[in-house]
């Protein structure tokens, strides 16, 4: 199960970020932020090689000691639910793309994917 889920805008700022409340939230934020280095590198590398067949799922980003960070650029089962939910958010006529996500449905979806705080 996930301990932290973040949706990042293409300009690299967080649209949505949530972590298991029992843990150090800041640390997760840093982890997400630092893993953007790899995302950026992977995307640019893919862009160079083959723009069309780009793999959306970026795979394991960082082999950190305690957690594994996976990146996904907008389709794999773990992420499908998240993606669908994100699509719903984007379909909301009252959502302005680029704003931070404030949606109960999305929150609920993320909660299901996360480790339940005991």
């Amino acid at each position, binding site marked *: 199960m996930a301990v932290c889920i973040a949706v990042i805008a293409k300009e690299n700022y*967080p649209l949505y*970020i949530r972590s298991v409340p029992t843990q150090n939230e*800041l640390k997760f*934020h840093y982890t997400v932020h630092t893993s953007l*280095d790899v995302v950026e590198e992977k995307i640019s590398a893919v862009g160079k090689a083959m723009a069309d067949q780009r793999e959306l799922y970026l795979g394991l980003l960082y082999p950190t000691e305690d957690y594994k960070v996976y990146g996904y650029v907008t389709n794999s089962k773990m992420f499908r639910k998240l993606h669908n939910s994100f699509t719903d958010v984007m379909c909301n006529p009252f959502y*302005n*793309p*680029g704003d931070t996500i404030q949606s109960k449905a999305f929150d609920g979806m993320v909660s299901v994917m996360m480790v339940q705080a005991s």
Partner: protein
Amino acid sequence: MMSPTQWDLPPELCCRPMAFVALTGLDVTYNAIHRAIWDAFCANRRADRVPISFKVLPGDHEYPKCRTKRTSYEWYIPKGILKTGWMNKHLNLVPALVVLFYELDWDDPVWKEKQSECATKVEIVRTSLQGRNTKVAVVLIQKKTPLPPGEDLVASERAASLCNACDLSGKSLFVLPHTDHLVGYIIRLENAFYEHAQTYYYTEIRRVKSHKEFLNKTTHQLLFVRHQFKIAFFSELKQDTQNALKYYRTAYSLVHELRTHETNMLEIKTMAGFTNYKICRLCFQHNTPLDAIAQFRKHIDLCKKKIGSAELAFEHTAWMSKQFQSFGDLFDEAIKLGLTAIQTQNPGFYYQQAAYYAQERKQQAAHMCAHEVRYPTPDPLETLSGALDFYGQRAWRQGHQSIDPPDAEKEKVGIQALQVKEKDVPHSELIIALLSNAVAQFKKYKCPRMKSHLMVQMGEEYYHAKDYTKALKLLDYVMCDYRTERWWSLLTSILGTALRCSYLMAHVKDYITYSMELIGRASTLWEDQKSRIEKNLIKVLMNEVPEAEPDCDPASAKAAQALWSDRVSLAGSNRFTIEVQDYVPFGQFILLLQCKLHLYLKADCPHPVRFSKLCVSLSNQEYNQFCVVEESCKSQDILEPLSQENMCLVPGKTRKYSFKFVAKTEDVGKKIEITAVDLMLGTDNGRCVLLNWRGGGGDAASSHEAIQAARSFRSRGRVPEQHAQWDTVSIQASTMIISRVPKISVQLSHKPPALSNEMYCICVSIQSNEKTVAKDVKLTAGLKPGQDANLTQSTQVTLNGLEVCDESHPALLPDIAIGDLQPGEKVHPLLISDETVTIETVVPFDVAMKFVSTKFEHLERVYVDVPFLLMTDILSASPWPLHLVSSQLLLAPTMVALDEPQSQVEHVVLQTGECASECFSLQCPPVLNGTSSVASGQYLISWKRKSSCADAPVVTTVVTLSHVMVETIPLYVHAELPSFGRVRESLPVRYHIQNRTGLVQDVEMSVEPSDAFMFSGLKQVRLRILPGAEHEMLYNFYPLMAGYQNLPLLNISLLRFPTVSGQLLRRFLPSRIFVKPQGRQAEDASIAAA
């Protein structure tokens, strides 16, 4: 450099093991030859030379004693895994080979004595190496170059004898001739030594392996590990790294098979760490980095949970940290030797993890060693030898291998001693060193965010180490990255630390800056925290001491309070200019519209903000005076801000300030830019902070917000001007000053189309509708520049309507000063009005001309001295009536007029399409022979528009008449006859025949009979005319019929010029005449008859 600590890996483990060869019998201090030999051995040891570590030892050196060989392991219980001295012993103390250098030539005079001396020396070495398998070799240093083998019989005999005396095999005796090729000989020697050393290590491996059969798995578990490690180590010395790796791997798995309990956990981990280090090192060396990484991961996974004694948990984290660090070092070293690392797999991660464990260690140490305990005496960590016997054991219970500690009290004291020692460890220093290693790596592998994160950690560590200056330097550096990436949560946390640093150092300026950003909207702090910070900020502005930041160490906070008090009493340095681009709670926007400037200010902090001055700086500083809002207020006023006041910003509300100024004339066409916006907080007598925004202001979030707002479809309801919606305002920090369209009307009255060559009159009336005087109005009139060059040359403009232009007039009249246009008082900038008129031009008339004979017959050519007529037709093409004032014929010298030519078209007015004709009688004087055509002259027509005013200038159009062909004729004939005849009345006709040649001409002429006339005179005659003379012939014609009648034809032929036909000459003569009917009498008669 930090001194090696308990956790550092021993150097003998980290070095590359090389075969140890001892050289004896060399006097390197006093003997030059020996020195040269030694130098040749140790200098230039490049990779292509065999891996041997040489050492010069005295001949009687005592080698470590060899313990007596154990014959049985039955009752033996090992005290530890690996002795601390073992690796060093085999690297540096116990040689694989001892080489004895001895100066002896084959033909030495005292051979016998020398031989026995050498044998004695060998014996001494052998005795010292009692029990060891170390080989001994002898090198004879000789002065002479040896003969090829087999030729020197004395040598082979004596060599055999020497070997015998020293109990050496022939393979162990070498000869080193001291000649030019020393290095070559040395290389051959060391290769031979290397072979001996390898044999030695091979036998050592065999020896250790042979112990195995005596061991049992219950009591000798430790020995299994020890032996595998030793075999592996000897393999390394033998340079057999493949096997070494294999044995280390076995040793590694055996370590983890050992029974673990709290007392031996450290020893097991230490040995596991050593073995792991060796494995990883060899994997990198074999260029299998993935194996190394996999081994390391396995190692960490296996050891992570082996914490050992809870009271010494910091030891575990220290060990973990060291594991990561040394792997990072190995990785980095491999990269330096050519390995390529990638972004997600580089040494930085290991340093980072090492730093993480170092941080853990620090926390644990702080937690476990907090109690005030004195270092116990006697020192439980002291041992008899000063060092431990076995790696990873406790000083107070060395060799103890059972589960429970032998003495609980001693155990307690020992742990206490370790805890006290841990307190003195410079944890922050260690952490920072590791972090900076990691930063360097991540910088190399394109991980800017990771680098920033680590720098934040470094900054925080400096903060903990109370080095606030360094902390701030690092935090400041990364803040801007987080700000631009808009990770507000992270930025807020960094700012919090930075604020504490600046508080503790009592750095007023930094304190204000960080406070400002923290109370702004980019910060994710709760309102109550923001409120607290703002209150502190207000205190600082009032020159008071702010409250201590929470989470500050109480002692430091106390010191900071004192520092702040000093700052307060210290007057003078209370003005600060802070560059607040990007991070201030009040964002701001500016719109520059012509010379009206709107400044929007919005405070995002929890409490209202009062300011004392607001000013805008523009690129032209002369305007700055118009863009200032100032209000003097007492320092106390800061505390009681009134929301309705002008100088107060209410949180969340946008306030708009408008400034107006008049642009200067010299700025027309230039860009005016807002260079800065300054907002002064506080007062001059308290503390005063000048917030300075460069350009149009805004903060880090605003540019993004502007984009988002632009994308947004949210309805933007009409809001009152004063509370304009913040996110709909976009920054426009510069504007172009252009001259405005003047309220001046320019009317042009003229009557197109213009006629070419005409003085075309255009009336310009300029009327100013300005409220003020338009000064120095200037008019530029004329042909629009940049048109056809011919047009420019042929067009002239004048201001004088009565004057006719000529070439001297220009095509464009620039800057005609008109003076001031009423009314008003103010000065106006230059206004430029542009009016372009396109004037259609038509040709006013066409002039056609033709030459005709006196009989109005068209002439192809004219004849010399024969009169002819020039007819001109002026056909008006102008839409306007044309007034022809006069016309004039200017004849060329080749033409003469037969009478005084007078204009026949004077004051004739031509309507469109009408034509005026003139006729002039001309004659051509004689021309030079060979001339075929002559110029006729010019025709001048003076004219003007009929419609134009009476005093309009008359224009003269010049038409150049065409050339005409001229011919000379030999004979000229002309007739003299009345203008009409009357029936039955005599009509005298005189023919004049003129000879125009210089010769006498025979002329034959005849008159043909005609029905209309009877005539008298010579009907046919032949006559002779002298040169230049004229002959006259008189005929009396008697007309018989009325009306136009053809005259009788006169035929003339020249006998000399048969070409001149009568036809030609007849052209000069009238061909017919009008004959009137008979007079009154006849009429009367006819009446009578009627």
